[in-house]
């Protein structure tokens, strides 16, 4: 047995292992308590958390809409499509009536507002010599299975002007729409949206047949589908845990070394969830993935710890000594890495979107807990349970094994190979810059971007937007005026002109505004004479025209200080949104004055535009902050700019290539993918820090770069490659998620985990090989015979005899 190196432990280390029993006991109690609280964590599906709360559009929207927010109902559209006939068929209309009746009886439906071809409020208008004539589209008393009845309903439908809105453009489908009230008006009990969506599904399966297709869209349905997807996240978590378990066991060949780090990692997750609940938070739409990330980070550090413990035990140290030495050797690097992670995640706080702030908070808390669970608790537990002889043998065998992989990788530290590596890196950077040019902001797909393009919901959405002239991407634009001045000819004329400018903007499907209403009402009021479908010049006539037939209700609580334009968009691509916002901003710049001013806006597409603006701005901020934090931490730890470069360049390359990948896969930068940049850097920096600190310590002992790196690979490198692979496999399962953003995150995180690992194993030593060699040459490193790497590889025994001291300030004593 080789002579064991004797460490002088810091007071912290001494104290921790002195009180290890107490700490363990305390942890058990905390785990029990927080585990209990964790059981009460609820998913937080509030859609407003996805909106940038202080963006100009959102604030303007809130200011102008203050009166109308109280209703809070959510709109649902059900399209009933006949595969074989038309909506005027007797059989179809009968079934439509049954479906509509059944839906109106569901709990939560605002029955009075439900509209279908059958509703009494679905009226047609005609202008007759006597004035208006009007009636329901389907007259119950005359409804029969006759050609006359069919023809009459067809004419009524045309006269009602509902082709495109309630009847599809080809007359083969019609829509039932209604509001779902957030609370039962009688019992005041909050509606269970998921249960409601289940009821809708029941109606769908009851009436759907080969001849009849039913399509349902609306936020309630979308969120319910998302929640269904979330339930599977638990499965993904389980899958990841199992994969980690299997790989960990294969790696360590030791049940104890497998279960303890896994357990400690789970403790971090349990504490995280428990603390979330204690703080009164739920798991947000994006944060729901964070426990997995925390678990992944925890495992990554846990592997370093058990790796160290096994090696120390292999050298013949006792359980407690092995754990103590491992803690002593790793805690500084581990702490640095985790603090970098945590602060890196915390930089996401600068993005003013609730869901991202939640994610930043949850992730930072989680990482802080990993410091306790895996840097502190794990060595303590290992000091009790120790490792099995099999594990020690395996570690010993692995350490002594001559691996062609490690020796191959070690070549990267060779200056010649390193230079070639840098050439390859330069090419990759050029390629990355070129390919990431197409990187887009925002959602690039139609329908609900949170769900997959081929999900039921999005197929339904496609059906409805393809066959009806209705849209689910809406923007409201406000024209503010002084009090009692919203009905002047000038204001309404400018509203009309902006409407026309928008109608000429690509992607705008329809515009409705008080100007349109005034024209229609003047047309109707003049016996259907199209020549009078113009804004009346006389302001008394204009006021009347805007308020007639109850089409316009007061938008502003009777103060007459605003008008609204409602526009429907073909999609919510960033180009469409920008075209609209540009049109409005330009119009406002040309026309705003003391009488009228135009402002954006409300509606989901306006919020999407606001979100994109925030994200576009934040995109570079986040990168700058994350890299600044990580660079600063590395600088503080290693006191060397060369170290910062060695650790950061591989990360930066990964970030760049990740953007190129996003551009190529058509994944836009959005609320779901922006955090990935910070998360990727945060996790990637661990690898760099562990490898660099071990490499640095070997170099300080005077080994040649290549030898030092080979030894680093055999110890830390092994752990890094193992964690990189394990995490990548775990995250890769997300690619199969029914939730689009989880799948997107899965692709990107897998890519980043793998590339960060490869970068840390190849580019880092190449950079170190070039930079540190120069450093040692100029600074005059401790004179050692094998300085230039031309000496034969050291025997393992020699390495073991010359124990690396912990990096930092521990004094080295002769053993």
């Amino acid at each position, binding site marked *: 047995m080789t002579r064991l190196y004797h460490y002088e432990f810091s007071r912290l280390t001494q104290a921790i292992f002195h009180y290890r029993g107490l700490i363990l006991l305390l942890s058990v109690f905390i785990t029990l308590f927080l585990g209990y609280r964790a059981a009460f964590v609820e998913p937080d599906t509030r859609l407003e958390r996805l909106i940038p709360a202080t963006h100009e559009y959102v604030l303007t929207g809130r200011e102008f809409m203050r009166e109308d927010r109280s209703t809070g109902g959510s709109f649902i559209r059900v399209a009933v499509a006949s595969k074989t006939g038309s909506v005027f068929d007797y059989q179809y209309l009968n079934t439509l009536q049954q479906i509509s009746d059944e839906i109106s009886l569901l709990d939560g439906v605002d029955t009075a507002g439900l509209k279908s071809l059958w509703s009494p409020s679905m009226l047609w208008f005609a*202008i*007759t010599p006597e004035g208006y*004539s009007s009636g329901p589209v389907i007259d119950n008393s005359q409804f029969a299975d006759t050609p006359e009845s069919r023809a009459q309903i067809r004419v009524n439908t045309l006269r009602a002007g509902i082709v495109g809105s309630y009847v599809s453009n080809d007359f083969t489908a019609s829509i039932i729409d209604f509001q779902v009230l957030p609370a039962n008006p009688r019992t005041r009990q909050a509606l269970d949206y998921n249960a409601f969506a289940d009821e809708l599904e029941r109606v769908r399966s009851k009436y759907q047949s080969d001849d009849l297709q039913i399509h349902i869209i609306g936020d309630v349905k979308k969120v319910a589908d998302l929640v269904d997807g979330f339930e599977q996240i638990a499965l993904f978590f389980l899958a990841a845990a199992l994969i980690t378990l299997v790989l960990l066991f294969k790696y360590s060949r030791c049940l104890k070394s497998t279960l303890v780090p896994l357990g400690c990692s789970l403790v971090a997750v349990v504490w995280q969830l428990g603390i979330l609940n204690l703080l009164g938070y739920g798991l947000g739409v994006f944060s729901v993935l964070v426990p997995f990330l925390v678990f992944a980070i925890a495992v990554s550090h846990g592997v370093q710890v058990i790796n160290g413990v096994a090696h120390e035990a292999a050298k013949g140290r006792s359980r407690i000594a092995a754990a103590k030495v491992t803690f002593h050797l790793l805690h500084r690097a581990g702490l640095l890495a985790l603090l970098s992670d945590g602060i890196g995640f915390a930089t996401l706080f600068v993005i003013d979107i609730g869901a991202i702030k939640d994610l930043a908070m949850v992730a930072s808390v989680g990482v802080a807990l990993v410091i306790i669970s895996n840097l502190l608790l794990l060595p303590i537990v290992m000091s009790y349970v120790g490792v099995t002889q099999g594990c020690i043998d395996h570690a010993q065998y692995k350490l002594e094994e001559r691996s062609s992989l490690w020796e191959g990788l070690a070549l990267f530290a060779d200056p010649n190979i390193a230079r070639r590596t840098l050439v390859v890196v330069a090419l990759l950077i050029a390629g990355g810059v070129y390919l990431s040019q197409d990187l887009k902001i925002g959602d690039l797909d139609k329908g609900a971007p949170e769900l997959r393009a081929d999900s039921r919901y999005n197929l339904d959405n496609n059906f409805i937007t393809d066959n009806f002239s209705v849209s689910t991407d809406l923007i409201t634009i406000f024209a503010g005026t002084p009090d009692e001045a919203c009905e002047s000819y*000038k204001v309404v004329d400018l509203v009309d002109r902006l409407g026309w400018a928008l109608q*000429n903007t690509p992607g705008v499907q329809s515009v409705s505004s008080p100007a349109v209403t005034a024209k229609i009402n003047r047309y109707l009021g003049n016996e259907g004479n*199209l*020549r009078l479908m113009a804004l009346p010049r006389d302001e008394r006539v204009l006021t009347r025209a805007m308020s007639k037939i109850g089409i316009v209700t007061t938008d502003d609580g009777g103060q007459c200080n605003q008008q609204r334009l409602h526009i429907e968009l073909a999609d919510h691509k960033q180009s469409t949104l920008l075209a609209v916002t540009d049109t409005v901003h330009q119009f406002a710049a040309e026309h705003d004055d003391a009488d009228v001013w135009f402002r954006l806006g409300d509606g989901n597409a306006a919020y999407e535009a606001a979100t994109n603006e925030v994200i576009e701005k934040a995109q570079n901020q986040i990168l700058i902050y994350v890299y600044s934090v990580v660079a600063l931490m590395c600088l503080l730890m290693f006191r060397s700019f060369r170290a910062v470069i060695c650790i950061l360049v591989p990360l930066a390359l990964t970030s760049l290539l990740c953007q190129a990948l996003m551009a190529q896969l058509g994944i836009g930068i959005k609320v779901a993918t922006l955090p990935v940049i910070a998360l990727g850097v945060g996790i990637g920096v661990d690898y760099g820090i562990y490898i660099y600190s071990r490499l640095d310590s070997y170099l300080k002992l005077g080994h040649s770069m290549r030898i030092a790196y080979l030894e680093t690979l055999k110890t830390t490198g092994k752990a890094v490659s193992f964690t990189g692979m394990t995490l990548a496999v775990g995250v890769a399962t997300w690619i199969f998620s029914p939730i689009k953003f989880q799948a997107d995150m899965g692709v990107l995180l897998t890519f980043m985990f793998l590339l960060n690992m490869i970068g840390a194993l190849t580019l880092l030593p190449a950079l170190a090989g070039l930079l540190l060699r120069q450093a040692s040459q100029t600074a005059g490193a401790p004179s050692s015979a094998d300085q230039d790497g031309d000496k034969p590889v050291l025997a393992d025994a020699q390495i073991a005899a010359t124990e690396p001291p912990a990096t930092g300030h521990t004094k080295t004593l002769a053993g």
Partner: protein
Amino acid sequence: MYKPVDLLTQFSGLQGMLWVALGVLVLLGTAEARTYRDPIDLPAQFSAAASQSLLLDIVNRSGRLIAVGERGHILFSDDQGLSWRQAEVPTRSHLNAIAFSDENTGWAVGEDQVLLQTRDGGLSWSLVSDGRDADQKGPLLDIHFNSQSEGFAIGVFNKLLHSRDGGQNWLSWEAHIDNLDEWHLFAIAAGQEGHWYIASEMGLLFRSVDGGESFAPIQTDHGGSFHGILARPGEDGLDRVVLFGVGGVLYTSVDGGEQWKRVNTGTETGLAGATWLADGSALIVGADGLILLLNSELTQVKQHLIENGLPLSAVSLTENNRATLVGLGGVQSLSIQEFLP
């Protein structure tokens, strides 16, 4: 050598005043940009959506189709309606009707009593007059010339303008029409030399048989509004007149308006515009995308509904038995082959 003091001397005397004036003009110019301008004074915008905007009248002048509509839109097509271009129009007023007094001289009228003229066959237009200072600001609804010199423009509240010099001068002609109640004048048509017919409200039309010197009311047995009218001289020397409007009401006369016969249209849909076919039959369009073919005896109609069901305002014939329709959805082309015997 340049001396700084020169700068000061530059700002004295005439030169200095010119500089100041220029500065003021620039300031006014920037202020002008923010000042609200009335749609009458704003040139019509060119836009891709113009051919789908609300269009109200259309003429076929020697093969060129010209349509007018909302926002000062005047569109023309030299390929029978396949492609449309926008004319240069100095106003964004809502334009209701168009007519030509000769080959190249045309007229358009609309909201705010704007009157526009073209001298180049409809490619570019100038604003002749508008009614912003008039007591009664209602729109002009129709205009018609029966010769190079003789034309009328009509509008709401008995608005009646007359020109005898090809549009050089327009005279208020209300004194020449027996319409004390000031019923709206919706549409005007000319029959044989000197005969004019004006469609009005309350089942009324006005007729002149003396070259427009005097218009006398004719009361049909109907009480509603007539939004459109067609007239042409018959082979027997008597005018054929078609009168139609709200509620699908259609009256015809084969004796220059002496006797009127109500034709059963089978619809209550409002009728808005019409055109004669070569054989003496007529094509009438209206709301709900309705098209009626009135036979040459003016006694029976055949019905057709176009798919989109949008209200139509006017129709013009094009080559190959096609018709170009204008209305709420802009321009559209339709084969009328199936209507013909």
